């Protein structure tokens, strides 16, 4: 799922500086799961902003709190319509998708991002999140024993490993495993080392050109019949 990290309080304070009434908007799905923008974080941020205001003596913000189940669906955004009447800005703790969705719907209001949306990943254990997928659009996990070289190899190469691997770790970050060592070991386990002996030509970096769109519905004739 989408993993994000809340921006620093300093940065947030700078962003909201020009605005009086600010609605802190949380998201009840991904941002709750990764503990960056759920109801608890909304409440904590609200408290922090109030303390900051009280301690510094300046700043005349008032804050409102609300958390939507998701920010990236129009129907959920409907629920926001009544709450933004007297608001000067929305500080969204949703991921980048949510922030944009809110901004598009409430195009007369400044919408500020409260989190840095970082990657798609999964928890290793409570409080530790690892990136797992970069949405390359051309998944080849079947060839690499279920380990993504594009995400987990820092260089994203297809004919790995490079010479920088030491002790099974990556030259760029000694806490991270070398993906290609992992791939080798697992292919060996599956009896599929042939996969790694094969030559992989250069990647298609643009299977769907950016900004991407996927259409799952059928395009019908004017007459309403399928071709």
């Amino acid at each position, binding site marked *: 799922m989408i993993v994000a990290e809340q921006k*620093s*309080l*300093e940065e947030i304070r700078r962003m909201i500086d020009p605005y009086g*009434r600010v609605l802190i908007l949380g998201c*009840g*799905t991904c941002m*709750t*799961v*990764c*503990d960056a923008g*759920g*109801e*608890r*974080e909304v*409440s*904590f941020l609200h*408290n*922090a902003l*109030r*303390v*900051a205001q*009280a*301690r*510094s003596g300046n700043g005349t913000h*008032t804050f*409102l709190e609300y*958390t939507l*189940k998701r920010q990236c669906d129009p129907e959920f955004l409907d629920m926001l319509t*009544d*709450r933004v*009447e*007297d*608001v000067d800005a929305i500080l969204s703790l949703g991921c980048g998708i949510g922030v944009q969705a809110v901004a598009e719907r409430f195009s007369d209001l400044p919408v500020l991002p409260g989190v840095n949306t970082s990657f798609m990943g999964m*928890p290793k*254990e*409570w*409080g530790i999140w690892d990136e797992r997928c970069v949405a390359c659009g051309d998944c080849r996990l079947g060839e690499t024993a279920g380990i993504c070289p594009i995400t987990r190899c820092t260089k994203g190469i297809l004919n790995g490993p490079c010479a920088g691997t030491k002790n099974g770790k990556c030259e760029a970050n000694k806490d991270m495993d070398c993906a290609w060592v992992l791939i080798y070991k697992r292919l060996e386990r599956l009896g599929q080392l042939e996969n790694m002996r094969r030559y992989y030509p250069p990647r298609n970096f643009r299977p769907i050109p950016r900004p991407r769109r996927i259409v799952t519905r059928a395009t019908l004739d004017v007459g309403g019949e399928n071709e």
Partner: protein
Amino acid sequence: MYSSVTDDTQNHRDRQAKKLSADRSLMPPCQAACPLYMDIREYVDLTAQGRIMEALQVIRNGNPFPSICAYVCTHPCEDACRRCQVDKPIAIRALKRFAVEFGGDRMVQCEAETTHGEKVAIVGSGPAGLACAYYLRKLGYPVTVFEAHSEVGGMLRVGIPQYRLPREVLDTEVQRLTQMGVEIRTNTRVVSLDLLFDMGYKAVFVTIGAHQGLRMGIEGEESPGVIDGATFLREVNLGLKPSLGRKVAVVGGGNVAVDAARTALRLGVPNVEILYRRSRAEMPASDVEVEQALEEGIDIRFLEAPTRIRRENGLLSVTCVRMELGEPDARGRRQPVPIKGSEFSKEFDTLIMAIGQAPQTPGGFGVRTGRGSTIQADPITLTTNRAGVFAGGDAVSGPATVVEALAAGGLAASRIDDYLQRRYPLADKEVKERLSGDLLPETIEMIRKTGRLELPTLSPEARTKDFKPVELGYSWEAAINEARRCLRCGMGAEILFQDKCATCLTCLRVCPYHVPHLDEGGTIQIPDDQCQACGVCVAACPAKAIVLRKPYDRRHITEELDHALKSAAQSNLKPFIIGFCCQYGLFGTGALAGLWRGAKASIWIVPVLCTAKVEADHMLRAFEMGAEGVFIAGCGEQCAREDTDFWVRQRVEKARKTLAQIGLEPERLQAFVSTTNGGDPAEELDRFAERMGNLYLASIIMQEVRS
């Protein structure tokens, strides 16, 4: 604070608020097992926090004579206590006794007004009768208790020896009744209920107990020197000192038999034995009594029974036969079968028969009796075949326990009230759902095991010299430590707001007891019978979907914090420090409990029930309202679980990170563990306070310089 809202939103908020104010706790097994449905969990928890007087209030709310139960209750609650599944049950009776003794004569409710005209007569002043009198009096009825003996209390007075229930304790309770305006007429044996109605009583509660000793029906049972057990105890309790000779045997295996044997010992009989026809496992007497009897040197002869008694040369020659256990009877107890040819003879000065008791109902009562001469009464309404006549206690059930009698007395009072006010006697509806289910091994593994602190007793030698109470009470420390062992069944966490739950699995991951799990449908469940109410998941849930079941727990920290902040503001002492201190530990009941009284000038304590519940939000709020420093102090090694400190530190770090960005130094927020590597917590606190003081001065100076 909020902008214009639609009705819909307000309704939603109202519904949420309603949900949040409801008591969703489940009835724990201890309470369900108690005939009085005492809120044991509550008073044990209050004791664990050192709030003994409040615990006593809870006890008194549920039990009219707590001091009696404190000494002699058979504690079905302890048998049902789920701590049995971990190590040993909580010593609930001992804790009750501690509370009662701690409270002494304070806070005793002795007032009652007469608001009704209908008089009620109670025949028998045993526990059922006294309880009924208490409640009827509280309801405003004029009550008269008729007692055949010279002393009040029924079996409490004449059956239970004084080394188990001291005279003074019973006297105090009886005195309260008279202070309330209950009329007690001793030495008055009631032989006809008609007479009572003629005297103007509108309802009668017959609770004459079961005092008539049963007979074995063997040859020689009428011989001089063969006495009835219950009678023997009564005589001793009424002050007589029957001479028993040097060698005494008691026949029987119940509490009366054991009491009789131990009483004989205390009267100076050097040789006392008990003859019981079954084995130890079948003995109905309570384990503790039997243990103590054995310690005192009483010889219990299992699988022996007398068959014939002859008086010879001033002694009783008793023919006994050995028994073996045969087939179980209708109730499942194995029947003793005499072994042919195993007869032998023993000699005693006195033989005390204590094989059972039955009520002696005068024919003049006109009530129908049934099996074992017990009075027949409806179990829900307690009515007999006579209008206006109610019955309860041992007279109806046969010999039973004190607490059951108290419950019967209480029920009788409300039924009599229904009757007199012409109300339909509805069976009491159970309001609360009961907790069921055993603790899983995974849960049990994570619970800190501590032995149960048994009540200290006098040494066996010291005991048998006189009738002083055998059990000594708990010390303060012992009581609190014992109370802390309670698992708080049924008041744990639940996902109250399912719509908010994102199934992020945080609760599953952080729970020290591995309680939350995914069900078949992939929904998170927090089984109420496993949850240990620690509060870790409540504070960690990113969606704020989890709350504790008791409204008090939900609000507790916020309310206490507000209270402390208000006090700090009013006192105007600067700088001030807020300390979140666990009530179960050092700051609650231990060495630093004095801080709670605001003794230290600038420190205001927020009592919390385990620091695992303190959230980063709470810490921020303290700073927002002007605290210069905040600390969190937990129980350290004494905590019921191992990782509380981990969570406290996680939240402290999170708060510190934010505070740093507000210009508040991280050192302003500290987590103290009460056993910090040998350091003296009081000293550490002093240093912390001093440092905060310096920071405060520094900030004042900075402000002056700037302006």
